[in-house]
């Protein structure tokens, strides 16, 4: 019973976060590429409920920022004008899932005020908006790559485990090969070879495909293990005795037994591939400017000056934690649930 609760909680949390990201355009006050060159590296905007006279406002408000004349690069709060936070504001147009266009934003402030709940980056772009839009790309990358990996893993691992013999040997040696190469650095070479005329989205898809194709080895080994023991089970032997074809056995009896492993693997692989996308973009191999992805948000931390001076640039990494926690919780719950089902 407890497992059921855990799984349900994890799935709810995941659904919540994922819908936040799906509707990034609605929840984000600005779009991901809007630069504000007067406010690079602005700290997170503080919300005030009490104004200078001590009066309470039910609607929180913010103050503007102006450059600190003494400290280059720092800002002082400009209490001359306050900007209340407005809900359901008309703003820049955005697309929902690439199909619908809308203009309403969940919250915003009147121009020329700027609300940077997570601060701004080196070009004055709002980090919160970039985090939400970036999630679209990073999560999609993780999902596609995990799906690719697992499909390949089922195909190759299933075949290897079911037929055994030289096929099994060959595939397992291949898996070792794939696990042994330092793919990260050879991916640099692949990136350099790509022709110039592919668009950003094509680059992105290509890299995701490469990540997924390269990552088949681990799920394949696990699935092979399950298939090896699954094909020896009594009802499978019985079905074979009744003259069932290989294909029937595979699809009807053996592969369904791998469902537990497959689901757990998916739940584990998605965060791993999201992290892989983050690392790749970090090293310059992922989506380029000005598209936002979680990796590009964190890549500015590579510079020592950003790392030591602008603490809010760490926040996207902090926000990833609950998301990954939800995935790991789901994976744990799935593992326990299917453990009790299989031997």
């Amino acid at each position, binding site marked *: 019973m407890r497992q059921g609760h855990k799984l349900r909680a994890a799935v709810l949390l995941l659904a919540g976060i994922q819908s936040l990201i799906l509707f990034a355009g609605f929840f984000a006050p600005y779009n991901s*590429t809007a*630069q504000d*060159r007067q406010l*690079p590296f602005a700290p997170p905007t503080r919300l005030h409920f009490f104004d200078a006279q001590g009066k309470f406002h039910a609607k929180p408000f913010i103050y503007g920022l102006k450059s600190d004349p003494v400290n*280059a*690069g720092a800002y002082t709060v400009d209490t001359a004008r306050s900007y209340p936070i407005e809900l359901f504001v008309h703003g820049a147009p955005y697309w929902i899932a690439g199909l619908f266009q809308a203009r309403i934003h969940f919250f915003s402030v009147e121009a020329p005020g700027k609300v940077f709940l997570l601060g701004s980056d*080196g*070009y*004055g772009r709002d980090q919160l908006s970039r985090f939400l839009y970036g999630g679209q790309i990073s999560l999609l990358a993780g999902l596609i790559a995990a799906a690719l990996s697992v499909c390949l893993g089922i195909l190759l691992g299933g075949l290897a485990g079911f037929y055994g013999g030289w096929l099994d040997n060959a595939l397992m040696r291949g898996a070792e090969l794939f696990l042994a190469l330092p793919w990260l650095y050879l991916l*640099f070479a692949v*990136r*350099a070879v790509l*022709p*110039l*005329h592919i*668009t*950003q989205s094509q680059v992105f898809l290509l890299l995701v495909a490469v990540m997924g194709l390269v990552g088949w080895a681990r799920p394949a080994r696990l699935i092979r293990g399950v298939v090896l023991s699954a094909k020896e089970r009594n009802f499978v032997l019985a079905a074979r005795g009744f003259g069932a074809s290989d294909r029937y056995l595979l699809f009807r009896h053996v592969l369904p037994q791998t469902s537990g492993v497959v689901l757990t693997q998916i739940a584990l692989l998605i965060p791993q591939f999201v992290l892989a996308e983050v690392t790749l973009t970090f090293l*310059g191999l992922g989506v*380029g*400017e*000005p598209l936002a992805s979680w990796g590009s948000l964190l890549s500015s931390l*590579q*510079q*020592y*000056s*950003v790392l*030591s*001076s602008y603490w809010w640039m760490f926040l996207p990494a902090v926000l990833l934690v609950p998301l990954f926690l939800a995935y790991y919780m789901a994976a744990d719950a799935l593992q326990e649930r299917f453990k009790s089902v299989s031997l």
Partner: protein
Amino acid sequence: MARASLSMWASSAFLLALFVAITCPQALAGEDLMVTENPLGRSGGRIVIGLRSEPKTLNPVLAADDTSRDVIRCMTADLIHISRETLKTESALAKSWNVSRDGKQYTLHLRQGLHFSDGQPMNADDVLFTFRIYLDEKNHSPQRDLLVIGGKPVDVRKVDEYTVRFNLAQPYAAAERIFDGLAILPAHLLESTYQGGGFAHSWSLTTPASQFAGLGPFRMKEYVPGQRVILEKNPFYWKKDRAGNRLPYLDEIVFLFVPSEDAQVVRFEAGDTDVLSRFSADNFAVLEKQQTARGYHLYDLGAGLEYNFLFFNLNDLSAKGRPEIAKKQAWFQDLRFRQAVSAAVDRDSIIRLVYQGRATPLWGNVTPGNKLWIDTVIPHPAQSLDRARQLLQSAGFSFKDDGSLVDPHGMPVEFSILSSSSNAQRSKIATLIQDDLGKLGMNVHVVSLEFRAMVDRLLNTYDYEAAVMGLVSGDADPTPEMNVWLSSGETHLWHPEQAKPATAWEAEIDRLMQQQMVTLDYAKRKHLYDRVQEIIAENVPVICLASPNILVAARDRVGNFRPAILDPYALWNIEQLYLH
């Protein structure tokens, strides 16, 4: 009477020699040391300097990368040196020289009585041997091409033990400057290796210290692979200070290998290194906060010689077969398009956001740091999107309702800008330009490639549309950069190695550059080069953007630290550095 005066001369000579021997215990008999004008310092101590990568070789003839050259420069000396402070030539191993009237013959008189770091004497034979090695094509020295003037290699002859004559095929304005950096090699050590054909493997990092000999302030002591190189004081160095003390002051220099700029900043801050040379403006802000607390000082020297620019692919692509790019070249080759792009770029933001204000905006290829050659008449228009739109419209482009730009044939204007992934500043510049051009309705994407892949596209395959690059001149004089501006040049980035000039203005630049190369009078050369700068600013084959300031730092205990804007910025006077 004569005999008495003879003995008097003899005894006074003897007394004088004794006096000299006592007061200048280190000066050997007959040495013609150079006297430097720096403030006096004390002997002893060592400083630690960070290097961004490991030196690849210690052979001056073969070294091609900056790190190797940095270390080699401390161990070797040249005949005529370019002073990093004044940017003019000064005497070094050659005490003086005469130029023939036609400018084709240079006679250099060497300092007498100098010794290599192993104690062996130096004379004209070493100079002859050195130039033979540099000019030998089999050695493939990167510096050989400097010595090929007017299509013919320099002819070097010995006149006597301390005089060497150089014959050039044509008068060459920058002739004195080619000697800077050409290290004089010891014939006694390398002759046999050279004859035996093993020169290409000599003087590598693993060569034992006793097999090195140079005329620089320091000599090799120890190399620990992957960690550091240690140099020790050269007791035979040929410079002394005004008080007669032989330089260098320091006992040892330690070059530490610290693989990235950020790591160098970290270690400097932590006190591991004493000198930090050329770091970025972001790190300047970080280091500034702790200056007094941690006992070091930062120096912002103003504009250096580096210029960053955006340029378009103007190559003739008919042979290469790149139809996509060829279609877009119709835009790139239109002067008004390039001028519009130049008008749309927000140079102010580049200075502020990329360089934290520590850079100078550029509209021409010569930076304000090059005071001898900059043309101050070139206009500096501010960013103007209106003017850009006007220019585009006059070129036949039009704006659609959603603001996007289309060319006269209705094709939307869309292209990519290449930038090097290893240079964070240039990538940032590309992103800012992308946003600026977006306001003009152009759809620009930034493609970040690794440096060598980018060079391959720029110079081999011509598979690019636009790129952001930077060049740093090794010298203020325009002649070393000829290959960039000559239409036949290999580094004529936007359209290299033309058989004949593709445009009238490129032909004009060719003519002017060839002329300044052989004009010996500075004022006339400046006039010619000014005209070149104006043509470049008018026709914008390269849209110049900004020149970063030279930023260096040193611990307070390092004395005589006088950084300059020419490479090596912090260490050009390493023999004069001392510890308080």
